[in-house]
Every structure is written in C-alpha cells, then in structure tokens.
C-alpha cells in the first residue's frame, strides 16, 4: 500500500458546466437504477418469494371468481380481467415498501453520502423511483409467466409489451416516490411498516384492480377516481390483454400518472434531505 503509484495527483473535482446538464441528470438517475439492478443480480431470491402473492391471487381468487361469474367484466373472462390488476398490485406492493430500503440506507450512512454528492436531489429521488421500477419490471416478468401458464389471453405485440413496461415503470415510480415521502416523515422502520400496511389494502381495494369501477357505490367510485392505481390498471388492462379496453383512454391514464409523479417528486426532493439531518 505504501508503494502506491500516484498516476493523477491533480485535484480536479470540478463544477461541471451547464452544457450537458440534462444528460448528466439522466446519468445520475440511471446510475441509481444500475445500483439496484446489480443488487438484484447478486441476490435474486427475493424475486421468487415475491412471486408467491400474485400466484395466489391468480390461482385461487382468479380461478374461483372466474367460475362464479359474480363480477360483470363484459366480454373478458374474469381471469383475463384480473391479471392486469394483479400485476398492478404486485408493482404497488414493491413500490410502497421501497421507503423501507431508504430508511435502511439512512441507518447506515448511505443517504448522507448520496446527499453530499453533486447529484441533484430530484435526480436522486427519480433514480430511486427508477430503481423501484427495475424491481417492478422483474416482477412483471413473473406475473406474465403465471398468467400465461393459466391461459390468460396476453397481447404479445411488441408495442403493447413496451406500453406495459412503461406503465409498470410509471406506476412503480409514483408509489415509490409516495413511499419515500412517508419514509422522510416517519424516519423509522417500525412506524413505516405500520403505515405501509395501512395504505396498501385501501389503495388496492379502492381501485379497479379486482372489479370495474362501474359496480362500486358512489363514495367508493369517488375514491377510486382519485386513486392513481385505477389509471395504472386501466392502461395495463388495455395494453396487456387481447380484447382489453380502457375506460378513461390511455392518454388520460398516462397524463394522470405523469402529473402525480411530477407532484410527488417535487415534494420528496424537498423532504429527502431531512433524512440526513
């Protein structure tokens, strides 16, 4: 170690010009996502344990309700109707508990280290959102596999698949950013777990994931309409399933998700530095 040869002793930590600000900003987001991908590659067991829940929903709930024909889903078989909902649900579960990982990073010193880097706060937050998206995409592969095994009529058109991937990324980004905001406020794992559990079920049930909004009582309809998950499921239903249709239009779905993401990112960029105080 004492024999170290110093090849570039010049201290050149510099202030980058504004010329390629956007590229640098995107680079910072992608770097955080790359970090997540590398972790996932080193320990893929989580992917398998996370596959259990969607498998149960599709296999047990889906199969039984398909036989019952209790839920009016138009021309779609119930299982086909449910598959996008289950995909959205597993994305939601991954994303909403993402704050735990951030609290973990805080208990170590990683958050401090990230916040002292030249990366912008918004880039750090969106990088985290993209990381959740990476995880969510790996989960989407598993849901597709399960759905295909159960005979769900999936739409394999490349554009439809790309649309699903984009929706999954957006959905994961929305709910992980929301999760980050909660993490910044509660700051401890114990409190976070409680709140996370309180939130997930209402978000899931007050959406069109398992049944159409049309059959809901009015008060629940109102809740479902302000629930971003509804728009995520709506887009997924149109893109993922042969013969699937959107209620609000894919343009509206994406617009709502993007707007919510922009608002949540703005708030969490402001709150994120609190984690290091």
């Amino acid at each position, binding site marked *: 170690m004492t024999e170290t040869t110093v090849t570039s002793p010049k201290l050149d930590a510099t202030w980058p010009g504004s010329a390629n600000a956007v590229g640098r900003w995107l680079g910072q987001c992608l770097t955080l996502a790359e970090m997540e991908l590398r972790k996932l590659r080193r320990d893929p067991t989580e992917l398998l344990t996370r596959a259990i829940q969607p498998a149960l929903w599709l296999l047990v709930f889906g199969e039984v309700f398909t036989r019952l024909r209790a839920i009016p889903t138009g021309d779609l078989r119930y299982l086909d109707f449910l598959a996008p909902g289950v995909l959205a649900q597993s994305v939601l579960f991954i994303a909403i508990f993402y704050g735990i990982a951030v609290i973990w990073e805080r208990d170590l010193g990683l958050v401090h280290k990230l*916040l002292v880097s030249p990366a912008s706060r918004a880039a750090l937050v969106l990088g985290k959102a993209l990381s959740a998206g990476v995880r969510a995409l790996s989960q989407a592969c598993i849901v597709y596999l399960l759905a295909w095994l159960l005979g769900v009529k999936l739409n394999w058109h490349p554009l439809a698949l790309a649309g699903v991937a984009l929706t999954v990324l957006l959905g994961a980004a929305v709910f992980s950013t929301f999760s980050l905001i909660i993490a910044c406020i509660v700051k401890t794992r114990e409190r976070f777990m409680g709140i996370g559990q309180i939130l997930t079920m209402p978000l899931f049930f007050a959406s069109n994931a398992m049944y159409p909004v049309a059959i809901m009582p009015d008060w629940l309809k109102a809740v479902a309409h302000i629930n971003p998950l509804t728009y995520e499921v709506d887009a997924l239903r149109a893109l993922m399933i042969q013969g699937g249709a959107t209620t609000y239009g894919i343009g509206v779905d994406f617009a709502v998700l993007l707007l919510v993401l922009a608002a949540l990112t703005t708030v969490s960029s402001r709150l994120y530095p609190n984690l290091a105080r």
Partner: protein
Amino acid sequence: MKILETTGLTRRFGDLTAVDHLDLTVDEGEIFGLLGPNGAGKTTVIKMLTTLLPPSAGSATIAGFDVRRQPARVRAAIGYVPQLVSVDGALSGYENLLIFAKLYGVPRTLRRQRIAEALDFSGLSEAARREVRGYSGGMVRRLELAMAMLHRPRLLFLDEPTGGLDPVARQAVWRQVRLLAREYGMTIFLTTHFMDEADNLCGRVAILNLGRLAAGGSPAELKRSLGHADATLDEVFAHFTGHSLEIEHDGNYRDISQTRRNLARLG
C-alpha cells in the same frame, strides 16, 4: 490559502445550541482535526459544512463557496466519509466504487484507471470482486476512503474515521489519510475523540466543548501552553474543557444503538 472559513457558525435544535458561534479556518493542504467528546457538536459541524444541515446563524465558505447559498458548488468540491457505514453491503467493492465514480461525474475515460488506483491505494485490489458485507471493519473504512478520493476533492471530510476499529486497522487508515494529504495534496478535515489520532495525524487541531471552541493550534503549541514540557494532548484536552476524555458523555441511546448495530453488521 484558506480553503474553509466559518464565521459565527451556529446550530440550534429547539432549546439546545449544538454549535455555538464557531469561528474556524483551515488552510489548503493541511490535516485539520476537530476534537471533542461525543455530543460536543462535531458531527453537527461537519453536517453544516457538507451542506446536509442548514446553519441557524453565521456563515461558512468552502473553496470560496457559501454553504448556504451555493450548496451544489460546495458539494462538487468536497468529499465526505460519514461516521456511519456508507457503502452498500450487497455490492462488491468494485461496484461500490463504480457507482460512486458515476454519481460524482468522473469522466468515462478516467473511470477505470481511477478505480484501479483507488483499489490499489486502499489495498483492496484482491477483495474488489467480493461482496462488501464480507469485509472487515477496517476494509470497509478503507473502501470508503477509496470512494471519497475518486473525484479528487479539494477538501475531504472524515467524521470519526477510526471509530470502532482495532489498532492495526487504525494504523492502515492513518497511513491512507496521510498519503491523501501528501501525494494528492488533499486538505483533510477530520473529527475524532482519540487524542493519539489527533497527535499522529493533524497539523492543527481545534477543541470543541459543548458546541464552543475551547482552544486551537498545533498539538505542540497546545502542549506547550500548559507550561510543562511533557504534557500529553489528553492533558491539554482536560485543561481546556475541564474534564478528561475518560469520563466523556456516553452519547445518547440512538448513538449507541447505532454504533453497535453498525459494528454488528460489519461482523
């Protein structure tokens, strides 16, 4: 040239004044030590200087940039190794370096060479591909120093760099810190509550007690000021703060549980 300058730097948490009108200067190229027992406000000072915590009053400039008004410029000029563990245990040493090289904007053409050099510098070339959770505490610290040098910061902040390390690992960290100052010309700002560490490493120290500056100068000057030739830095400390480090405050519950957790995590 002054690379760091604070004037009346103050931080309050509710009724508690953690840092009270601190005036400090650090020259380019020196190893500067901020000494004090746990709870003296050392970490609060570092957090304000690294832009993590806004000051309640007063100002600080680093490399000519104001920490409050130009935080992004300050961040681009400094490196920081927090007291807590700041590497990702689920990644290899190499991957940790790669991610931070990218995040710190080390140009693509320099990345590979810088990482190789940092690994060599910290004696981690052989362990580079192993997951960090298998590293010893000393190896983790050396990796953190390696990460902090990737972007060649002008000023490097080290918060309790040898906390929880055994004597051999401490020596290795000291060697590394000295090399960063000598070979790279980096200015080092470190906090410690170990007097031998300050004596060994620092050209100049400041003693912080209950958020206030109690004394400052080179270790030799401070010892001389006590009036007898063979004074130790421990005695200097006791003289200026009114208590010895041996009966230091133990830190609060959170500090202790966190330190223990981190040590346990590192195995």
